Structure formats: structure tokens, C-alpha cells
């Protein structure tokens, strides 16, 4: 083995060492992500409006389950649907009566009635999905493009954006725009984009903030959230605005900030 040969071997070894070091470095500073754990035994909160009349609690301790495997599958389906419902429409905020379904005690007939209800909810969902068209407010053309706002009204029957809602949203948009500060060093990065969905209650409080798209830069995401926190509470809904909640999507782009 010549000397040079040995040295290059060590150089390669050193390279590997550095790569391992850099890979290791990329992990420890990360915050542990929030994980959703699904419990093993399912308890289902089905949400229906009073208008449907089905307020009774489905619970029967006398009859044992007929087909455990089938039942579980169905319940799972029910659960998924129910989740979808709650997440998508935040239905619990509407006039509600909660029902608890204990899967262990459900009989076949009750399952049938359950399915019926699921169908009902499904049909309702379709209705809402159709009615809630997304509309975009074009940002003003002055100080560079900073946000794009999309909004979704909740609980109201109006499907398109009426001028009152539009005016309200543009007011909120102006507030957020004023509060938005791009973190140092990131102002020139063009490819950063964070999309945040904000849920505003009737009295102007922000009740829910959800990041729909992360920019890939944690500081940038955090500053977007911080901006939203700083504008809370927002002005309450104008009286003519129908509905309990308003969902607005903000797109944070590092434009020129005046």
C-alpha cells in the first residue's frame, strides 16, 4: 500500500464522517410533530341538527353484537365520516345535539338507522360543498403582492360573496398586511409561501388557525402565525353579515413591505 493511496482512503473516510455529521445535524433541532393518535376503542360523536329529529341516544345493553367484525368496520366508517364532517364544516358549532354511539352495544337495526343518518349527512355535505364556492379577492396592486385571500362563509346560506362580506374581508386583509413583517434575511427569498386558514368568530376573535401549506422555513411559518396572533381580535362582523363563522385563507408571500 503506497502512502498516497492510504491518504486518499482517509480523505474518503473523512468525507463520509462529515456527511454523517451533517445528516445528524439536520434532525435534533426539530420540534416533535403533533401526532393524532386514534384510540383503539372507538366512541363516535355523531352530530345532527335538531331539525332532523333524531335526538335519541343509540344505546342498548341487552342485545349482544351479532357480527363483531362487520360492526367494527361500519363503525370505523361512521367515525371517519363523522370526523370529516366535523373538520370540514365545523358542524358542532351549529345548533347541535350530540349523540354518543357506543359501538359495543349497537344492534343491527340500530346500525341500519345509523347508516340512514350517515346518508342524510352525506347528502347534506354535498349540498354544502356545492354551495361553498371559493372566491378570491385580488390584492391591491400597490406595495407588491403580499396576500391572496380566499374566503368561505360558514353556516350561512349565501353561496357567493356579497359586498358586505367582501368589504369585511378586505378590512381584515388590510390589518394583516399592516402587521405582516417578513423575518430578516428572508425578504429576498421568492419561493417562500405559507398558506394559513383562519377561522373568525362573529365577535371578531380568531378561534382557529390552521397552516394549510408550510413554506419549508420554520421561522417564516412562525412569523405568519405571529402576525395573525397580533391582529387578534379583529373587528366584529357587521350586523348585516350572516353566519357565525368566517373562514379566510391568507397566502403569505415575501413581497416588498412598505
Amino acid at each position, binding site marked *: 500500500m503506497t502512502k498516497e493511496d492510504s491518504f486518499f482512503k482517509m480523505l474518503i473516510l473523512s468525507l463520509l464522517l462529515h456527511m454523517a455529521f451533517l445528516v445528524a445535524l439536520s434532525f435534533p433541532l426539530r420540534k416533535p410533530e403533533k401526532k393524532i393518535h386514534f384510540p383503539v376503542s372507538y366512541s363516535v360523536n355523531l352530530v345532527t341538527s335538531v331539525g332532523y329529529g333524531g335526538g335519541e341516544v343509540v344505546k342498548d345493553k341487552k342485545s349482544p353484537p351479532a357480527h363483531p367484525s362487520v360492526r367494527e368496520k361500519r363503525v370505523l366508517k361512521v367515525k371517519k365520516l363523522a370526523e370529516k364532517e366535523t373538520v370540514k364544516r365545523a358542524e358542532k358549532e351549529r345548533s347541535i345535539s350530540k349523540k354518543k354511539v357506543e359501538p359495543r352495544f349497537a344492534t343491527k337495526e340500530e346500525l341500519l338507522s345509523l347508516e340512514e343518518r350517515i346518508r342524510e349527512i352525506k347528502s347534506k355535505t354535498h349540498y354544502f360543498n356545492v354551495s361553498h364556492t371559493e372566491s378570491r379577492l385580488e390584492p391591491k396592486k400597490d406595495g407588491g403582492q403580499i396576500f391572496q385571500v380566499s374566503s368561505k362563509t360558514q353556516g350561512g346560506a349565501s353561496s357567493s360573496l356579497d359586498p358586505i362580506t367582501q368589504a369585511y374581508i378586505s378590512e381584515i386583509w388590510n390589518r394583516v398586511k399592516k402587521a405582516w413583517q417578513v423575518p430578516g434575511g*428572508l425578504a429576498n427569498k421568492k419561493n417562500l409561501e405559507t398558506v394559513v386558514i383562519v377561522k373568525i368568530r362573529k365577535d371578531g376573535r380568531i378561534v382557529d388557525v390552521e397552516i394549510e401549506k408550510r413554506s419549508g422555513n*420554520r421561522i417564516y411559518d412562525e412569523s405568519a402565525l405571529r402576525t395573525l396572533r397580533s391582529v387578534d381580535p379583529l373587528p366584529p362582523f357587521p350586523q348585516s353579515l350572516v353566519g357565525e363563522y368566517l373562514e379566510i385563507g391568507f397566502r403569505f408571500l415575501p413581497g416588498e413591505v412598505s
Partner: protein
Amino acid sequence: MDLISGGVLGMILHAGPVAKAVLAILLFFSLVSWAIILFKARQLGQMEREANAVFSIMNDVDSLKKLTLQLRTRRDSPFYTIALLAYEGSIKAPKENPSRTKENALEVERRLTIAIQEENERLEKYLSFLATTANTAPFVGLFGTVWGIMDSFREIGIRGTTSLPVVAPGISEALITTAFGLATAIPAVVGYNYLLGRCRRIALRLENFATYVISFLEK
């Protein structure tokens, strides 16, 4: 992208061009100095094993010729070179004149000293790079930091706001070059001192061996 954004790698990717250049220089320094540390550790380890073997042979041998013959298997070893030089000197030495013998021994000793110094030079080769890395890497890193903070302050001036969310990320990014400078320099310092110590010990053993070999000539 999302995976690395939270960690230090994400910070590196978002750093400015000067910081990236500084980090590239530091990476080069670090790569080479680690290669030298590993290479030297191996080379010195080999030398130490040789020295141990030679010293165990040394006590069983009663003449220079036998010793040289014993060491013939280690042709690359400096111990063999020393023994051979001394043996050649002993052949040349005129047996009948004691004063000439002493002169001859001195002559051999000079040659041995040169051989040992050459060997020392070979042992300590590249170690100077470690010393350079240890001394300069923190400053290179510091340069990156100073530049980054300079940039941050300029940005504060332009934006007219000193709020922490605006200022902190720039400074945090600037500091990363100092961190990497230190991460480069510290192993270099430790490696340099450790390896230099081992070099000195091996050199000492070579000198002892030479003294021992010369004692044969003076008999």
C-alpha cells in the same frame, strides 16, 4: 425540504452567499484536517508497533550485524535504515587504530542524526496543516458572522424596525459560521497536540535506538 428546514441544515441553505462561501472553506479545512488526523493516527500506530517489535529484538542481540539481519524484514522502517547505516560504518572502521575508531563513530553518529531528522520530518509532515486549521478556522468563521451581522444591521436600517422577529433570524444565521469554525478548529487542535505528542515519543525512541546502535560501534 421540509425535513431539513427546521435543523441547522435548513439554516445553512437559507444563509447568504458570503456565509455559504465561508462554510465551504470551513468544510474543506475540516475534511482535510480529519483526513490528516486519521491518516497520521494510522501511520504513527504502525510506527509504534514497529518500535515495540524492534525494542524487544534489541535486548536479545549481541552484535550490530545480527541486529541488522533481524531487521531486514522491515525494509521501510527507519529502524532498519539506522541499523544499516551504523553497520556500514562499522565495516569501514579500521580495526587496528582506536583513535580512528572513535572518529568513525562520530561520523556514523552524524549520519544517524541526519537520518533521524529526516524521519522526524516525515512524521510531522502535514501536521502543520492541522495547526493552520486550528488557528485560522475560528477567524474564518468569525468573518462570516461579522459579515452576517453587518447585513442584519443594514436591513434594520432599511426597514426601520428593530423588532426581534426581524433581527433575530439574520443574527442566528450569521452565528452559524462561527459555530462551524469552532467545530472545525477544535478537532484540529486536539488532533494536532495528540499527534505531535506521539511523534515526539517516536522520535525519542528513534534517538534511543541510534544511541544503542552507536554503542556497538564504540565497543
